């Protein structure tokens, strides 16, 4: 026993010596800002250049992996092209090393952000609204700029979030206006995920329905296939609306469309942008229903769009399966690129510098990848909000499975709505 005690004593002494003798490495590398190094990127084109690390918090295995995976691939393609074209200043950009899979779980999202936050300059992709909200507090503390893969109506209220495109709330308003004006709808139902994403669309629809004086029915949904959507379908049928707004994932949307079609529903079903996935075309029995009933509300163009940006993107994509999410990921790069360039221009490539650069950004040349007026963070938030929405219909002949059916327009509700007070979803 004495021997054990002695041995432990020695071990303790050695351990404490080790711990006090050589302290832990408290600073982050070469003295530059977090996420900026003089060392080349892991997959550098030019080994002479330093590296800027951007974090990616996406969904590779969860409900929205159909969004997260192509989105991330698009981003990678964008930055690969930027790096090949000489990078930004003395740096190249890496979006691979700190790419994490949150599996569409806000808690895991927050946890992963904690893991990478000391190693990145900014977040190039934060997928999900509630998810981005979960890290917003910490990010604000550290002045970290975030590019969200989410179109919530709250982002224009936050300085460090670089939103692009119209939000779910505005899209929903436009959808209702469209239904009333073009389809003569008398009633609208919204099937949506619980949570900020679904609620945002629901509130938009509700606001528009009230403004236009038509019936509104709220039908909460939840992730899951046909068995989980049965009650949703039942709820919609009971309300008997002329148009149904859907803010879920693609599987849920497909089940709802299928269920409604089965029961003879003939109105329109307008889904938020994340409700479409090209794989639904594999569901042969379902395609006719989708073609007949479904519209996708979005402010972005589809894969085959005829702009220089899309052309370059298609070239960069090569063999990658076409996906509008890929295009969105690719396009979002323009904004981050502009912010980094401005920060370098200001000779302040730090988090603060990035934030200042972002705040002063009043638009970006995206070669037609982003909607008109995107990336305006300088002016009044309400003015900067993109209010126009286009509708895509299912078209199996196109590369991404959808094709623009209704050109971008701004409905009366969205036009007059003040987005600068609070996020739509907070009014749910």
């Amino acid at each position: 026993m004495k021997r054990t005690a002695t041995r432990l004593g020695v071990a303790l002494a050695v351990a404490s010596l080790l711990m006090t003798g050589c302290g832990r490495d408290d600073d982050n590398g070469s003295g530059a800002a977090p996420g900026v190094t003089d060392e080349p990127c892991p997959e550098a084109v030019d080994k002479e250049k330093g590296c800027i690390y951007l974090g990616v918090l996406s969904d590779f295995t969860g409900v929205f992996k159909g969004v997260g995976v192509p989105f991330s691939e698009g981003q990678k393609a964008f930055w690969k092209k930027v790096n090949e074209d000489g990078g930004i200043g003395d740096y190249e950009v890496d979006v691979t090393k700190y790419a994490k899979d949150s599996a569409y779980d806000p808690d895991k999202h927050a946890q992963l952000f904690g893991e990478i936050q000391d190693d990145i300059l900014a977040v190039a992709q934060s997928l999900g609204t509630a998810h981005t909200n979960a890290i917003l507090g910490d990010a604000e503390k550290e002045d970290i700029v975030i590019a969200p893969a989410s179109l919530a109506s709250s982002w224009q209220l936050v300085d460090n979030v670089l939103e692009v495109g119209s939000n779910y709330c505005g899209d929903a308003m436009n959808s209702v206006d469209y239904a009333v004006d073009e389809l003569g709808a008398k009633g609208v139902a919204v099937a949506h995920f619980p949570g900020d994403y679904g609620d945002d669309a629901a509130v938009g629809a509700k606001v528009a329905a009230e403004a236009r004086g038509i019936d509104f029915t709220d039908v909460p949904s939840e992730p899951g296939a046909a068995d989980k959507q049965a009650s949703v379908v039942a709820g919609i049928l009971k309300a008997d609306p002329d148009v149904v707004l859907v803010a879920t994932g693609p599987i849920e949307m497909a089940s709802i469309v299928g269920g409604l079609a089965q029961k003879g529903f003939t109105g329109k079903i307008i889904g938020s942008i994340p409700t479409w996935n090209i794989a639904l075309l594999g569901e042969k029995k379902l395609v006719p229903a989708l073609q007949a009933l479904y519209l996708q509300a979005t402010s972005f163009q589809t894969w085959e769009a005829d702009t220089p940006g899309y052309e370059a993107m298609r070239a960069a994509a090569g063999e990658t399966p076409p996906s509008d999410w890929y295009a969105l990921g690719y396009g979002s790069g323009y904004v981050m690129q502009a912010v980094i360039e401005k920060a370098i221009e200001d000779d302040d490539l730090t988090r603060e510098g990035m934030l200042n650069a972002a705040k002063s950004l009043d638009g970006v040349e995206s070669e037609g990848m982003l909607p008109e007026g995107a990336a305006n963070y300088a002016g009044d938030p309400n003015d900067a909000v993109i209010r126009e929405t286009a509708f895509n219909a299912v078209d199996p002949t196109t590369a991404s499975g959808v094709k623009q059916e209704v050109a971008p327009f701004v409905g009366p509700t969205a036009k007059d709505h003040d987005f600068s007070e609070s996020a739509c979803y907070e009014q749910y």
Partner: protein
Amino acid sequence: MTTPTDEKTTSFSGHQLEETTRRPRRIWGRPGLVTAYAQDMAFFDTRAKLVAVCALVAIAALMPLQLEDDILKLLATGFVLAIGAIGLNLVTGYAGQVSLGHAFFVGVGAVTAAVLNGDPDGRRLGYGITFLPAWMLGAGLVAAVCGAIVAPLATRLRGLYLAIVTLGLVFIGQYIFAEWREGTGGRGVGRDAAVPTLGDVDLTVNGAYTEEQKLYWLMLVILVIFAVLARNLVRSKVGRAFAAVRDRDIAAGVMGVQLGRYKLLAFTISSFYAGVCGSLLYAADGHFSPDEFNLGMSVLFIAMILIGGAGTISGSIMGAMLLALLPRIASELPGFFPFISDRSTEHPNIFEVETALYGVLIIAFLLFEPRGLYGIWHRIRTYWKSFPFSY
């Protein structure tokens, strides 16, 4: 079946031959010469244990000066999980009541703490109580009350029936959490977790020490307190009653152990620990959502106690630490096995490997080392204890 009174008359214990007033003395160098029951049941029954545990705690306390923040965070999470694992071990490992409902009580704790601590003017319900012990114990108490409410149903059932019913608790709990948006933030959204502050110091803000260092110390202190409490509990009359219920509940009942009472107690205490665990579990990430408290979390806790060692406090801690570090271990794997990708688009990738590894760990431990990490430790200890022989 002998009656306990029969035993007394067999020798002269009824008379004053043994003095009870005197403190039991320890005879130097003779740990086996136990002269009092208290000594036999002592917290540290040997000096080596005392020294070893003190040394371990001391080393653990010094770690933040040496280790990087990301590891510290994992370790701190491990400490908190260990509190929950100890709780589950009390009801499952010690009292033998298999519970798959632990996640529910953890959830109750997390929600309660968040509600108590939350900003009164915030988006969600909050009472603005910043005093850490208040919301931590409050969370534990509310969870304990839930445990006490559930216990009567649980005491009617045994074995796998009980396991499935407690599993139902998780589903019902998730439903309630999802419905109560005011408190929980709702499914898929969640809310900010309780913020650990001591006095005016917000432990989640970097200062002279980083957030991770401060949280690590906080969790270490709390874990030590709760581990000591649990250890004291299981070496008491209550602990022995638990063991009796576990080993053969009918026999225990015949011997005068009030089954209902002790099962109730086991569930209540276990839930209290779970509640405390839940209140602290999200301090580092600052956010949680009700989707967390699902079957997977219950299984995680079960895995902790089985991998650590059922019916041991130290095993609970070891199991929790291993599972807390598992993601990190998995993320190191691609370095050793190049065929494992760290990109989620390729297969097999580390995310899959991590999850699979977890399943494999469970299977492997139960197949090869049913007593878990504690069993391994026990073997090592026995190797030296039995030195220079093998038995």
